[in-house]
């Protein structure tokens, strides 16, 4: 297991997402109201890139013609077939037990701490005054 510094926290605004590469893996990082979540970017259905998908709320219903909208911004839909995944858990809506995305642990660390190591920050410089997203893989 290694911890990878993948982005400046400021690079992903609230409601945004960013595709990063970690040891050749595609990982998409979301910012939900200031909390960061990292999921594998590859849809387990046919391999669509989730980072290109629509972010939406959750639609539920109590009966025909009734629509209950909640959890605005917490669902990512694959751009290819629109299957829905819960950003917080990586689980699909239609088959949450068997069909899910790999979920990675994410931390936001101050640059001052990162400079001390032992972190992997291959692609950009870390500044002491900034905060960074660190993913454990």
């Amino acid at each position, binding site marked *: 297991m290694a911890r990878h510094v993948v982005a400046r926290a400021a690079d992903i605004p609230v409601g945004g997402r960013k595709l990063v590469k970690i040891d050749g893996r595609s990982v998409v990082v979301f910012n939900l109201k200031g909390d960061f979540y990292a999921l594998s970017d590859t849809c387990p259905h046919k391999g669509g890139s989730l980072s290109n998908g629509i972010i939406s709320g959750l639609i*539920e*219903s109590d*009966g*025909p*013609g*009734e*629509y209950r909208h909640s959890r605005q911004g917490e669902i990512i839909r694959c751009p290819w*077939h629109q299957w829905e995944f819960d950003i917080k858990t990586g689980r699909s*809506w239609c*088959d949450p037990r068997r069909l899910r995305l790999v979920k990675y642990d994410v931390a936001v660390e101050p640059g001052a701490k990162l400079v001390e190591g032992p972190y992997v920050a291959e692609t950009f410089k870390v500044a002491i005054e900034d905060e960074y997203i660190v993913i454990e893989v």
Partner: protein
Amino acid sequence: MDIGRRSFLSGGATRLGKRPRIMKHCTGSGRTAIIEGGRVVSASSRDATAGENATSDHAAGSFKGAIDCDVHPRVPDILALKRYMNDHWRETVEVRGIEGFESIAYPNNAPLTTRPDAMTGKVRADDDVGRMAKALLDPQQFSLAICNCLYAVQMIRDEHLASAFARAVNDWVRHEWLDRDPRLRASIVVPIQNIELAVDEVNRCAEDKRFVQVLLLALGEQPLGKSMFWPIYRAAEKHGLTIGIHAGSSYHHAVTGSGWPSYYLEDYAAQSLGFHAQVGSLVAEGVFVKFPKLKAVLIESGVTWLPPYLWRLAKFWRGVRLEVPWIDRPPMEIVRDHIRLTIQPFDAPDNADTVRRVLDQLPSEEMLLFASDFPHWQYDGNAMLPSGIDAALRRKILIDNPKAAYPRLAL
């Protein structure tokens, strides 16, 4: 009056050949029945050479105690119905010279329409309760049979006339069939042209517990899941009636989505496409969410088309379920819990392994209900079940599944 009849069948049978494959849905055991007085007295076939193939197991088996979920009493003529009309409608029939309503769904001379053992010369077994008993119920020793009268009430354009004919058909079935044979149950024919009148008819007939089902057709003017039909389902659920959807059409629209076909062969085969649409509609519109106790039986649908359609339905539901968020579990599960299918005809080759593989693809064995489809000619001789059905499943299909599908059979 003979609405919608195309000049099919004086020559149609010839065109299709003596034994068109359309009736050879399954079974096809190659048997030749010997008929005497409308009763099968013996059958010669390769079944006689026991062990030659798996067909022998079921063909030799008894159907004693079975519940036949699809038999067709035929209204012999307009006089039979006039007896059950009030003065106004009786006079209307006379003054207008209405001779009756027949659709082209089962043309008289088409080989599918009447089994040879349902005929004695020109006398048919399906327009008299005694003759049907003698040709089917007695020799087979069925415990119960559900009468689905296919008189073409659904074709009539005038909804009030349709209502009068539906009432007459139901009262004719009640008095001429149910009252005369305790083994018989029946479906309620409704004037689907007017939902209020249809509900009235359901409520009127439901007082008689021998009516166990509301009969609808696979091809109508709107998909059956639409909310305009819900009052019928509400009434059915309240009375413990099952919804039966039988092959057939109001013939108000073409029987395919691409217009009218040329031949009866296409017309009959297209019925299964109608069933596809009805299953999709019932599921997507949320009928079984709204009426969780309701069951729908697909009668004479052919059965084996269903699994591939459900795979398609399930796959696309995952992507577009936002349209129908009330469908909160895979359509396969909803169909498993609410849809049943009569097993006659069963579209598959006569090969036990193939049949078993097809059956494995159905969501559940509880879905299959026994039916003879008498007097339609869906099988030869006595081969009323497809090959490859073991004893345990056979019992479910013949007895347990029908009982579960029709709560009123227990009354």
